[in-house]
């Protein structure tokens, strides 16, 4: 249960009559910005659910749909509690409203009620509120139905869009009751259905958004069209942090179709009547940049300085138990390794873009965004327009992966609209802009040391992480950066949850970023740390001469790792661990906990003589607790495996003189169909808290593959991405 919303206090639940008749149920958060509007009257209520006098059910959501299936899952939850046929529920993307604040970000209300989609939180955090809204509506409909039929309320039930008087079988439709229900008092404590009563939740349910997505009708940010809208591209300094020193727009303005050239904080915007003119105009700009200090930064030097820092005396502690120094000094056997992971780009298929209309005292935005509230907050900071006068219309997102939690692309559009004379402007980033001005998954240098006892099991584990910090860049959460430099996201999955039963542990972190923007990348710190932990533990198993599966099994012996051990066992069984494989094919195993879910994977891999790696099959087992839509869970895990595998095989953003060296899909490779392994997903619904689905599947794949590579070749991959030259024989 989240801290702010308490279903027992009905002040959070707002009931009203819908314009045009019917019942509306929504929420508001006392104390958050915008409450006044939410509370002024039923017609202004930003609803979770509307039931029309015609019986139509509309589910309004503030959650962004980026492919993860959250819209559908939440609508299933509301249909379940409401007792209506899921097919009759219409999903509507809501605007920006405190009612849509995501309970996951409740701790961050200092900067406004946070409506954002991230952290694999839609179902497990937002879903609870949605269910209460549905349950409240059901309660009021039953009351209204009992009154209408003049029967005892206790003899009436909700069934498939009707209130039914059980003894007589008489029934009234929701549509006929919607107006009366709106006059009922919201229940103090709406009772949620028990899992045993679920008819929709837990069943594979087709997604509402598939049909528009196969006909080209689905509307993404790039498809937004407004009357009088102009298109802009922005020339940004290729060096991070660089600024415009001077520029000439003369040649750009000669390009037919170019209307204006304006300077904004992030560079020079060329505003035209179409993309092609805007791009040609941008190519024609003559800009002198003040490149700033980051121009001296290149990848090799960065990793060298991190190697030096890793040996230094100071670091911020993340996890400390026992006495690592003594255990290492007195160990029967010691294992030491150094690992490096690179920066990674997000590569949403739809490049960053946003449409904005700055109107002086208000701002209207259309964007494929994961972070409506943060967008509004930063737009307000930029323009001085209060957040209550900023509207954000969310389109479908052509991928998100954490990239669209940032606000930079929205600010580009708002600033350009203002500078171009308060006209609606769509700012389009090219793929090159998108790859070279990302907030990259942090890179890091890692030093591991472990001590093994006589039985081969570890008695000490030391892990030092040196690398870039997300929170240093993500200003909205900046206050979570500890004074000693500890960024909890950098050690996420390395120290916050430590699965292994080892008596002496020290995990610490040195924050060092020479200026490469770092950001949230599907699964965040877990993406690098899942690889690191599950690789090094594989090394320990090998040093101990033990089977990697059994070795982990033994290490996952504490109660908090019980569910991780269960998915490990399941994946080993389903993958046929220990059973023979075709010649040349080898297995690797890995398991990791993230965002409340436990995931284990086995990869089957072969390595050709030229070092080329082929991943034939990945078997995954996941325990997210109870689930809403198994079809979505399967597809999210498949997608996560693709995402993690692309990164492991190809993902590498490198910096030269402060610039990203990669520019487009020709030199930032993405896995294609012929390289995609077979994927098998097994779902375990363990007891305990519900976990997320979008992110946890990303983490185990890289170590499962590199551990399989070790099994195949005896070569340990300690630096990602995996390159054929590392494996050539």
């Amino acid at each position, binding site marked *: 249960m989240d801290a702010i919303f308490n279903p027992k206090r009905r002040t959070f639940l707002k009931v009203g009559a819908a314009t045009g008749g019917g019942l509306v149920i929504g929420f508001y958060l006392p104390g958050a910005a915008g409450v006044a509007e939410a509370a002024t009257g039923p017609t202004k209520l930003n609803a979770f659910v509307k039931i029309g006098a015609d019986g139509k059910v509309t589910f309004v959501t503030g959650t962004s749909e980026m*492919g993860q299936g959250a819209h559908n899952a939440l609508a299933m939850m509301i249909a379940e509690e409401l007792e209506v046929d899921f097919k009759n529920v219409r999903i509507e993307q809501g605007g920006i409203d405190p009612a849509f604040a995501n309970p996951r970000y409740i701790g961050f209300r200092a900067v406004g009620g946070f409506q954002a989609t991230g952290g694999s939180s839609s179902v497990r955090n937002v879903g609870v509120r949605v269910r209460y809204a549905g349950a409240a509506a059901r309660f009021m409909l039953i009351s209204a139905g009992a009154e209408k039929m003049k029967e005892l309320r206790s003899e009436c039930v909700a069934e498939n869009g009707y209130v039914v008087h059980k003894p007589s079988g008489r029934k009234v439709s929701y549509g006929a009751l919607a107006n009366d229900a709106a006059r009922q008092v919201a229940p103090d404590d709406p009772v949620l259905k028990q899992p045993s009563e679920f008819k929709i939740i837990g069943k594979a349910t087709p997604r509402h958004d598939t049909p*528009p997505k*196969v006909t080209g009708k689905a509307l993404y940010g790039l498809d937004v069209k407004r009357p009088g809208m102009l298109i802009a591209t922005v020339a940004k300094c290729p060096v991070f942090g660089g600024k415009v020193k001077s520029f000439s727009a003369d040649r750009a303005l000669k390009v037919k179709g170019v209307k204006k050239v304006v300077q904004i904080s992030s560079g020079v915007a060329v505003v035209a009547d179409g993309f092609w003119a805007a791009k040609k105009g941008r190519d024609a700009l003559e800009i002198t940049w003040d490149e700033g200090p980051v121009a001296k930064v290149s990848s090799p030097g960065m990793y060298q300085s991190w190697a030096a820092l890793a040996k230094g005396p100071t670091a911020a502690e993340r996890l400390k138990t026992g006495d690592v120094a003594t255990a290492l000094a007195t160990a029967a056997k010691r294992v030491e390794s150094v690992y490096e992971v690179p920066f990674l780009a997000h590569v*949403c298929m739809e490049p960053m873009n946003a449409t904005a209309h700055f109107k002086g005292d208000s701002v209207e935005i259309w964007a494929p965004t994961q972070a409506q509230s943060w967008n509004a907050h930063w737009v307000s900071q930029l323009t001085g327009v209060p957040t209550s006068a900023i509207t954000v219309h969310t389109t479908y997102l052509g*991928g998100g*992966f954490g990239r669209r939690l940032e606000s930079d692309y929205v600010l580009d559009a708002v600033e350009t609209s203002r500078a171009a004379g308060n006209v609606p402007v769509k700012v389009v980033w090219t793929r090159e802009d998108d790859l070279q001005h990302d907030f990259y998954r942090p890179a890091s240098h890692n030093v591991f040391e472990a001590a093994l006892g006589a039985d081969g099991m570890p008695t000490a584990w030391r892990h030092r992480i040196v690398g870039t910090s997300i929170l240093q860049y993500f200003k909205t959460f900046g206050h979570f950066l500890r004074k000693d430099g500890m960024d909890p996201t950098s050690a996420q999955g390395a120290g916050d949850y430590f699965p292994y039963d080892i008596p002496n542990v020290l995990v610490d972190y040195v924050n060092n970023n020479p200026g490469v923007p770092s950001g949230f990348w599907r699964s965040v710190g877990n993406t690098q740390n899942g690889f690191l932990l599950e690789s090094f533990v594989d090394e320990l198993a090998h040093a101990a001469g033990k089977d990697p599966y059994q070795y982990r099994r033994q290490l996952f012996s504490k109660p908090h790792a019980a569910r991780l051990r269960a998915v490990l066992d399941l994946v080993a069984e389903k993958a046929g661990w220990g059973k023979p494989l075709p010649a040349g094919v080898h297995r690797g195993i890995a398991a990791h906990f993230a965002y409340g879910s436990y995931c284990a994977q086995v990869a089957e891999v072969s390595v050709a003589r030229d070092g080329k790696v082929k991943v034939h099959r990945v078997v995954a087992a996941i325990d997210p607790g109870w689930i809403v839509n198994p079809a979505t869970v399967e*597809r999210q895990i498949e997608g996560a495996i693709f*995402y993690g595998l692309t990164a492991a095989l190809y993902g590498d953003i490198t910096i030269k003189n402060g610039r990203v060296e990669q520019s487009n899909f020709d030199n930032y490779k993405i896995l294609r169909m012929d390289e995609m392994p077979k994927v098998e997903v097994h779902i375990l619904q363990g007891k305990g808290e519900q976990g997320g689905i979008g992110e946890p599947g990303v983490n185990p794949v890289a170590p499962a593959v590199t551990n399989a590579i070790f099994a195949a070749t005896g070569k340990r991959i300690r630096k990602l991405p995996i390159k054929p030259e590392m494996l050539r024989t």
Partner: protein
Amino acid sequence: MATSLTLNVNGKSRLISVDDPDTPLLWVLRENLGLTGTKYSCGIAQCGACMVHVNGEPALSCITQVSQVAGKKITTIEGLSRDGGHPLQKAWIAEEVSQCGYCQPGQIMSAAALLAKNKNPSDAEIEQAMARHICTCGTYNRIRKAIHAAAAMTRKGA
């Protein structure tokens, strides 16, 4: 001087005017004709998001200059079927291929060109026909399955 051209798009003749005859077909479809089902993602023939048919052959509209296709038959995702009833669209829905969905119109256009020639493609033939496409949501296995399903539907005369 703007250039006027007549394009044949989805069976209709459309008069358009562009400042630059080198403008990629992609932007003309999206901006001049409002056919936004054809997507931009890389602009350099690397991802397939912009795939359309020109005279029945798959063509990447991001590198096709509009002046080159005047008078040719252009088909976009909007013109693939009247009501989303192409076997591939049906199979895509049944298999629930799409995640974010952004790459899918392009994927479907390549798949349609394949099925028009080959009613029973093998995995290898599908992979070859789809090699120009990227899906960063990782839906490839579902796409392959949906193409097989659509091929089966077509063979049965659906």
